[in-house]
């Protein structure tokens, strides 16, 4: 049994750290942070997204791929060679960790689309990239691209998140932003690809919750060319964000107003212009409204967005210290890495906290 064959609800822990100035830090802190919430996971999945970790290859897409066997690797590499100029390839460095077993082959490729192929496809570069990734993940048995952004990467596995971090030697990477996820699925899939974060291009999502709108969201987003193969909330939320941000062109705060829209009764108390804004978004993008409990951290190129569902049915705390912003399911996971915070608060339901590089913290609080 693996993701995609059945739908598995899960509880979770999430954590995120970003330095607003873009200053890079090691992965040590995020491992420490997520390890505090050990009891919020059950050893069936953990992972990290790290931004700014490949400055020497920042103009190339970094593909992280799981292979179940060498046959899958061969077919996938043939596909990659047909579509991309491969600048560099290597195994992703790992170390043996007790508690992380049955690892697949884990490879990393830095690639750029062949100019002629790209021109023939009549797609923009990112759409070309996304299409190729969908192709590998749906067509090549045993190969799974789990990270495909520029200057960022996802590292995930079946196991407790702190073990996953050590396994991938995350402390040896330096990035300006990290997010982490510990998973508590109510079933036992045990497939590495099913761990979180889920990522598409430079968008990554870590999510704690079980959304009640899942099938409405899934069926709506599949109409726009996405294929939900994992049947997980995180997957569909990532696609919604990719669709609204990359394809439609909404800004992150507008996306928050779509997926965690304010209630009509709240809107009715707003000034007329705000009312029109929200009525427009709720009408035009009604199928992208997400209901049911969730707390998510969305990583993207140049920033991060934390968001709770409209009723705040999952815990999420934000802390600030100097240039750093911390987000976690529990305050303890922030205090362990930064006990002396300038400010700490719990954002209300539906109120996004958006942190941009060299920008401020945009939050209602």
């Amino acid at each position, binding site marked *: 049994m693996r993701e995609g064959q059945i739908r598995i609800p899960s509880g979770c822990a999430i954590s995120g750290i970003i330095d607003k100035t873009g200053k890079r830090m090691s992965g040590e802190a995020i491992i420490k942070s997520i390890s505090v919430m050990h009891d919020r996971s059950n050893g069936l999945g953990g992972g990290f997204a790290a931004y700014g970790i490949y400055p020497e290859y920042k103009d190339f897409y970094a593909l992280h791929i799981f292979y179940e066997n060498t046959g899958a690797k061969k077919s996938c590499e043939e596909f990659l060679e047909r579509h991309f100029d491969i600048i560099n390839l290597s195994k992703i460095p790992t170390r043996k960790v007790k508690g992380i077993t049955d690892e697949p082959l884990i490879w990393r490729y830095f690639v750029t689309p062949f100019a002629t192929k790209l021109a023939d496809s009549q797609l923009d570069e990112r759409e070309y990239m996304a299409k190729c990734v969908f192709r590998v993940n749906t067509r090549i048995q045993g190969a799974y691209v789990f990270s495909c952004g520029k200057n960022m990467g996802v590292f995930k596995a079946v196991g407790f998140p702190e073990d996953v971090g050590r396994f991938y030697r995350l402390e040896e990477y330096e990035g300006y932003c990290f997010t982490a996820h510990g998973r508590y699925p109510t079933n036992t899939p045990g497939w590495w690809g099913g761990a979180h974060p889920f990522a598409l291009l430079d968008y990554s999502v870590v999510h704690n919750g079980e959304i009640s*709108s899942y*099938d*409405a969201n899934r069926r709506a987003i599949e109409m726009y060319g996405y294929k939900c193969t994992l049947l997980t909330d995180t997957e569909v939320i990532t696609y919604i964000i990719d669709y609204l941000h990359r394809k439609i062109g909404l800004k992150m705060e507008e996306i928050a107003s779509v997926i965690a829209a304010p209630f009509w009764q709240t809107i009715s108390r707003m000034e007329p212009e705000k009312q029109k804004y929200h009525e427009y978004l709720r009408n035009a993008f009604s199928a992208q409204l997400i209901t049911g409990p969730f707390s998510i951290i969305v990583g993207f190129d140049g920033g991060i967005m934390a968001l709770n569902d409209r*009723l705040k049915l999952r815990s999420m705390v934000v802390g600030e210290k100097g240039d750093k912003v911390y987000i976690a399911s529990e305050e303890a996971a922030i205090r362990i890495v930064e006990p002396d915070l300038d400010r700490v608060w719990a954002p209300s339901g539906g109120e996004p906290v958006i942190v941009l590089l060299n920008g401020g913290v945009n939050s209602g609080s």
Partner: protein
Amino acid sequence: MAVNYIYPEYEVVRNYDRCIVCRVCERQCANGVHEYLPDLNKMTCDDSKCVNCHRCVALCPTRALKIVKSDNTYKENANWSNKTINEIYRQAESGGVLLSSMGNPENYPIYFDKILLNASQVTNPSIDPLREPMETKVFLGAKPKAIKRDAEGKLVDNLTPHLTLSMPVMFSAMSYGSISYNAHESLARAAKELGIFYNTGEGGLHEDFYKYGDHTIVQVASGRFGVHPDYLSSGAAIEIKMGQGAKPGIGGHLPGTKIVGDISKTRMIPEGTDAISPAPHHDIYSIEDLRQLVYSLKEATDYKKPVIVKIAAVHNVAAIASGIARSGADIIAIDGFRGGTGAAPTRIRDNVGIPIELALASVDKRLRDEGIRDNVSLVVGGSIRSSADVVKAVALGADCVYIGTAALIALGCHLCRSCHSGKCNWGIATQVPSLVKRLNPEIGYKRLVNLMNAWKHEIMEMMGGMGINSIEALKGNRLMLRGVGLNEKELEILGIKHAGE
């Protein structure tokens, strides 16, 4: 065979111990069932005239009356039922087409009754509508394919005309003529009070009701009765009626006896003439013709009104809907084979069309597969009987439902299925002034408002149980549904899993 007697299907049973000979039953029955026998100072009745509308039963002050199914029977035969035999006797006598009213009453599967809803347990919380907001507001119309921003980067409202409803239910098309002035007034006032819409049907719009225009859908059907520029502009939306679930493939016929006074004026035809709507629109023989009518109506109303195209659920409904979704229409209404009517040939009503649940599921899927679901909203009717049906229809993929029969029942209809006789004792499907005034619109509209408010509460309870606090998150959310006792093919078409899966 000259004997042409058919024993009545239902018998009026009078408890003479209770009867006080007040003669209310006699006065109330437009069919002349009850009669006073002065010599005996006793009431008698002719069961053969009884349509089983329960007017006398409901009004008898001493509860002396009841209607029972007759136990008189021909020799039992699994193939030749009493009904079938009687219909042959009737047709052998008259040479005519059998007529019926209201929806198909035959024993076909009711898929809504084989679908069960989900509820939250442990992994996510149910939501209590008494304590938290629970939203049922819906918009009907096309969704924009892209956004626009002004010079400052602010989002510009680029939505096409749409309808805004407080809950996903509307009153379906019932013409002034097929139902009474008072019935229409009840529907119009209720729609206004509820923040929803009612539909004129193909009878035009009485000038007294123009004031409810913001809550009115004006219909354009094949007979084009009552259609003029003011009429089109007076409504909130325009519906092109291509078909009706009760009688797919055929037109309509309002007998001249009902074309009296204001009805003749509203329909813009002379008094006493039959109002015959052709089977097809004679300017629409194909999908490209439909597109022209859609745009003609949009031109006539300055592109300010959404256009609905209503079709009957027939075998090829998914492909037809796909064509309509590309025709410029903003909303598609699909009417299932259980949908009601004021009059239809019995054989058509009982044998043509398909269940709305299957039609809805396949249309919604097809439009999504083709990437055009956002071009249109889907409204389904025929027949939605309860709030549970509404929730199931929305979860299958509908944006909204139409109710007709349920609304009439709220007004007093007892489903005697004799609308075509024009002698509705409840003042609904009649134009006889003495009968019409039995329906008090003041009370009628309140009963409709009550019914809708009750359904709304129930919809909110069911949504809350599923952990959904806004109706848009229920739309097309088929994981919230499970089938019971359905075969693989039925589940596949409905796009749902079986209970236990």
